[in-house]
């Protein structure tokens, strides 16, 4: 360990101002602070600081994503082998899935981080940790059959136009991972909708055994084929086709538990999102004008990316509401709109993505109303005092 530290200290001057590689300063700093927490001390304000930093926070989000990711990898293998009519061991399924998913993860990270490093260097900023999470979220909301170049294009678009042009991590208005998906959804719809992309190899005309279509629960619904919906337990445990990370509700709930215990994810947003979804479904159940409206709340919430979105996307602190009461409204409306879009617009089977992006737009407005309310209370108090002073002077 000492040798490594000495080596870093030795090469450090090359990367500082006036050094040979000063253009790589931010990059060097990113790697150095990745290996070692800097020896910087407090100079003003509080003399002691909490041990938490953004790296730790992001690391924990990634850990929380792991159950869903690992299950997703296994499920990729499982769905593939099921489709071609063979049965292999759990490990063989997982190994197959790992090989299919890893390239997507690598492409997402390499594209995104390269852009982040370049922008950090241009701005002379430290490299921000935000992309560590975005980089793994993107593969998790992709179908396994997505071509790698599309992943790269989508990631690049979202990092540049959604994050960096707004000023980088902490400044963005929309959730970058969701924008990457939305971009692909609108630019290359054939690659991310329909029945073929959800099972590995299907887009390359792989022949499946009879009765297996690769359709996700949402595509069944969009096609008015409600009889084809998988059982509740399959929906919950995730033995269904779908985006890589979204299928197992159990794994997602495990992640939610980690986020809530560590205090990183907002339980308020998660619960109110689900409440919003249940509420809207309940309204639809009452109206009951068509079959989609009659789908029960539990199925609605366990279909598609609803739960994944509620736990990992809606809780993004940068693009969501930031005031405690704002969070409740924000989450609730996400749930409402997600179900509304699903049921009313079968052209967009995944309502959650659009709903969260929509509410990202409105989050600042919700917070504005909450804060204005606080200001109004203060003004009222002041007005009361001024009035009594006036009365005294009379």
């Amino acid at each position, binding site marked *: 360990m000492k040798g490594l530290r000495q080596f870093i200290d030795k090469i450090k001057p090359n990367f500082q101002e006036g050094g040979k590689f000063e253009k790589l300063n931010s990059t060097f700093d990113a790697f150095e602070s990745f290996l070692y927490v800097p020896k910087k001390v407090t100079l003003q304000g509080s003399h002691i600081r909490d041990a938490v930093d953004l790296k730790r926070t992001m690391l924990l989000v990634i850990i929380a994503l792991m159950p869903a990711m690992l299950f997703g990898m296994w499920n990729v293998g499982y769905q593939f082998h099921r489709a071609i009519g063979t049965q292999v061991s759990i490990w063989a399924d997982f190994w197959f899935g790992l090989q299919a998913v890893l390239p997507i993860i690598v492409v997402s990270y390499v594209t995104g981080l390269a852009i982040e490093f370049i922008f950090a260097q241009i701005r002379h900023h430290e490299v921000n940790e935000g992309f560590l999470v975005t980089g793994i979220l993107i593969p998790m909301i992709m179908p396994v059959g997505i071509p790698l170049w599309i992943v790269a294009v989508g990631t690049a678009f979202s990092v540049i136009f959604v994050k960096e042009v707004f000023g980088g991590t*902490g400044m963005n208005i929309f959730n970058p991972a969701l924008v990457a998906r939305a971009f692909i959804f609108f630019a290359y719809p054939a690659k991310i909708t329909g029945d073929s992309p959800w099972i590995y190899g299907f887009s390359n005309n792989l022949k499946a055994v009879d009765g297996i279509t690769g359709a996700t629960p949402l595509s069944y619904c969009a096609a008015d084929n409600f009889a084809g919906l998988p059982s509740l337990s399959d929906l919950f445990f995730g033995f269904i086709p779908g985006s890589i990370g979204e299928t197992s509700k159990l794994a997602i709930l495990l992640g939610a538990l980690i986020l809530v215990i560590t205090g990183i994810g907002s339980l308020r947003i998660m619960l109110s999102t689900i409440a919003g979804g249940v509420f809207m479904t309940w309204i639809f159940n009452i109206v009951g004008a068509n079959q989609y409206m009659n789908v029960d709340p539990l199925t609605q919430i366990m279909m598609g990316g609803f739960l994944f979105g509620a736990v990992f996307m809606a809780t993004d602190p940068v693009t969501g509401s930031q005031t405690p009461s704002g969070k409740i409204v924000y989450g609730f409306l996400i749930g409402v709109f997600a179900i509304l879009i699903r049921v009313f617009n079968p052209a967009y089977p995944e309502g959650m993505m659009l709903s969260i992006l929509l509410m990202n737009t409105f989050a600042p407005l919700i917070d504005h109303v909450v804060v204005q309310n606080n200001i109004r209370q203060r003004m009222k108090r002041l007005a009361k005092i001024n009035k009594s002073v006036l009365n005294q002077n009379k």
Partner: protein
Amino acid sequence: MQVIKIKKGLDIPLKGEASKVVATFSLPNIVAIKPADFINVLPKLLVSPGDHVNAGSPLFYNKFDENIIFTSPVSGIVSEPVRGDKRLILEIPVTTDPEIKYEQFGKQDVSSIDTDKIKSLLLKSGLWTFIRQRPYDIIPAADSKPRDIFVSTFDSSPLAPDYQFILKDSMACFQTGIDALAKLTTGKVLLGIDASIKANIFSGVKNAELNYFKGRHPAGNVGVQIHKTRPINKGETVWYLNPQDIAMIGKFFTEGIYDASRIIAVTGPEVKNPVYCKTIIGSKITQIVEGQARQEHIRHISGNVLTGSTIKNDGFMGYYHHQLTMIPEGDYYEFAGWAMPGFKKFSNSRVFFSWLFPGKKYDFDTNFHGGHRPFVVSGQYEKVFPFTIYPVYLIKAILAEDIEKMEALGIYEVSSEDFALCDYVCTSKTEAQQIVRQGLEMLRKEMS
């Protein structure tokens, strides 16, 4: 007894609480007043180096407000002031006499003298400078009329001195001090009292409204107590004082002298034997810390770890500080520190496994734990900020220098110390205290 519960906050589990013993030292051979301890004070010397002064004799006045006089805490010979950039005065040292000679102001019966007399005596003796005003934390102008006067009788910050212990023999003086202060306001004197202590020595105080508070830090911050009882509106001013300084004011009226002796708590994980210690305002700390440090590489803080100021091991105690804290410096590299389980790392978020061991105490050091980032995590400040104010919005308004917005968001009700825990908990390592201080200064200049 109605108790106001403060639900939000954080008690930082720092090691090194002072045991309830008072160590007595001989007089420090040198004391100093540091103008940097005050806000909006430009010192203009009233004495020359080599002059002899008594305890209570004027040393300098404030160029911005000539009525505000600062007096010497001890008798002795004035030394050459220590100056910094642009000849700015940093320290005005006085070499102490072997025995203190006091300036005589004459004994007073507080109940029979009038407001003007009290005011002029406080101004003349320099004791006025122990009064501070909210908003802005400045020493109030001589003609300032406070709406109320607030006193927090307990300090909830890490390893804070216990005024129950410090003032147990000075309650008569404290009461006299309160009686004097009560004449300076048309409103009330409000005492914030720790509800968790039974047989609280302050519950017998007369001539003041008593409010009981319970909860974690910052329940003892006067700002929180003001906010929960009679919040400050735009255009209003209130005063606040430290309880030990009130006892000093009481003693001034009963005995006619400015006795600047002060009991401070010497605390922190690097102190071998943390105790209380009787010393003098502005005392050099050499004597106090001699032989007490566990190691060489430590930071001496006049005040507590959240709001205090760094001083050298031969520096001087701050004017408003009743505590000396010694913690290790944290200028080390930590390999993959952010990725470790972190059993020895305390955090208010449960991101390290240390949260499984509540009640454990830690050696905190001065490491910054990361780098500065834009705001990412939300809801973090709200957990430790018991005001009905949106802290991050206020900070953003200050950064944007939007004065109207700052007012609307409630900047008059806060002071930088109320944001000390925000500094501490922030994942993005935002310097909240400093930003709020800047905001208040911006506002003060705009209003004057």
